[in-house]
């Protein structure tokens, strides 16, 4: 499988990465080189093979559903580009 220019623009939008028109063609070439490389996986017989979900045989750790941490609003927002009263500020989403 390979991607066309329109697909490159669609993937970039899904990935929320702005791509200039000048970048579409080189990206298309690079993505197609990677897709051509992974194409060989199509030749492997995977009938009756379970997809891997955990690389080591271990049961997922569980804990009680209780508060273990908190009261750190100042620290949580400390690295945010824009904040007000311990809220993250974003451009207006709802008119």
């Amino acid at each position, binding site marked *: 499988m390979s991607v066309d220019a329109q697909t490159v623009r669609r993937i970039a939008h899904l990935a929320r*990465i702005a*791509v200039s028109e000048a970048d579409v063609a080189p990206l298309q070439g690079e993505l197609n080189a990677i897709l051509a*490389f*992974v194409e060989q996986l199509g030749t492997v017989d995977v009938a009756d093979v379970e997809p*891997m979900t955990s690389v*080591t045989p271990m049961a997922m750790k569980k804990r009680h559903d209780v508060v273990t941490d908190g009261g750190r609003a100042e620290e949580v927002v400390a690295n945010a580009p824009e904040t007000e009263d311990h809220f993250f500020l*974003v451009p207006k989403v709802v008119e």
Partner: protein
Amino acid sequence: MTELNELTLAEARDGLKAKTFSARELTQAHITAVEKARALNAYLLETPERALAMAEVSDAKIARGEGRPLEGLPLGIKDLFCTHGVVTTAGSKILEGFEPHYESAVTHNLWRDGAVMLGKLNLDEFAMGSSNETSAYGNVISPWRRRENGALSETPIVPGGSSGGSAAAVAARLCLGATATDTGGSIRQPAAFTGTVGIKPTYGRCSRWGTVAFASSLDQAGPIARTVRDCAILLGSMAGPDARDTTCADLPVPDFEAAVSRGVKGLTIGIPKEYRVEGMPAEIQKLWDEGARWLEAAGARIVEISLPHTRYALPAYYIVAPAEASSNLARYDGVRYGLRVPGKDIAGMYENTRAAGFGREVKRRIMIGTYVLSAGYYDAYYVRAQKIRTLIKRDFEQAYAAGVDAILTPATPSSAFGIGEKASADPVEMYLNDVFTVTVNMAGLPGIAVPAGLDAQGLPLGLQLIGRPFDEETLFATAQVIEEAAGRTKLPGAWWA
């Protein structure tokens, strides 16, 4: 007297214990070496004041006879580990100036045991690369140089990646050891390129909590150091259970250092025939054969084995790793931390922020990951790759069930290359560096790279040992035999100072 930064970590530890020198003197020797080595660009951030303050505490502890396992030993930290109050960038513009309010589990364990932090080490952006050329903060220059016509060439050589700063700093004696991480070979390949030792432990041996995520089912932290013993000492502190990482194993940490001198008598070492890849330089094949002979001479039994799905590991990795990366890196959206670039609306802000903040390789991998997870392609790519992962793991399980204790392979398909020499339009050319290491991540196994010799250009070559799950001890024992047989690599003189 030897400069203090030339000591191995074990020698420095013993010298501190015997009060031959102080932690302050040892730390100062490293700070001076680091300042003189800025041309290598191994450190993104130097923290000399913090280092000296930590050394003072260590000297006081040693004086009271309360020295901890890593008391007063100066280390470098890959800038992928979050460090409390110390800027952590992951080598990316998108995290420029990010100051964590917490400490990663691995670095916390090191400071708990008395280690001293010298600073943060350069890396490929978000650990995505095999040459340290994708860092947003410039290339790392390897301390190694090629020998051409009997003289050292000026051509700058890559230290490998993604833990290029870690490997270069260890090889240049800018720290006694360094933390690193390995998703497809990022500890073992730079270790092999710089004549140092690096171990990627079993998935789950070290907590991933507080380490910037790349591909969560593959990422593992581990040390790079100048000897097998030093790696064993460091891993003993870095590893251990952590309730905050649900995939971190609840297993006690063995005495790795005790395993170093165990020897290989009675062990069965597998040589996988599928690793004899086309185009592999003859000197690597020769070194591999020699490694097998060294182990045999030390009492191991050498058997040929088959890992038939080896060739599919790298392509499957380039589906699984980008898929997980596209999900993990969705968090960099200009809202909670890092860079923000305004846009016409919120989606525009996300898109502009990520376009400006991520470098080319990271964008490429996020886009591949987005594509293979998108509607209509998920089964054909992602599910198929995860099935192939099951087959790769099964290959190893069958070898171990047949009595193999560890597997010997080359660490890389070539020695280090020059900066810019693999900058072609085809990203796959760079990916092929990880052809021998990536299988280990796909199967969650431990793997160690140990220096075994130099090539015709005078650059180091490494061998890799792959172990059973949670049996790093056998890897340390076996790697030690190779280190002794090959002789410790003579590291390059400080031409940069």
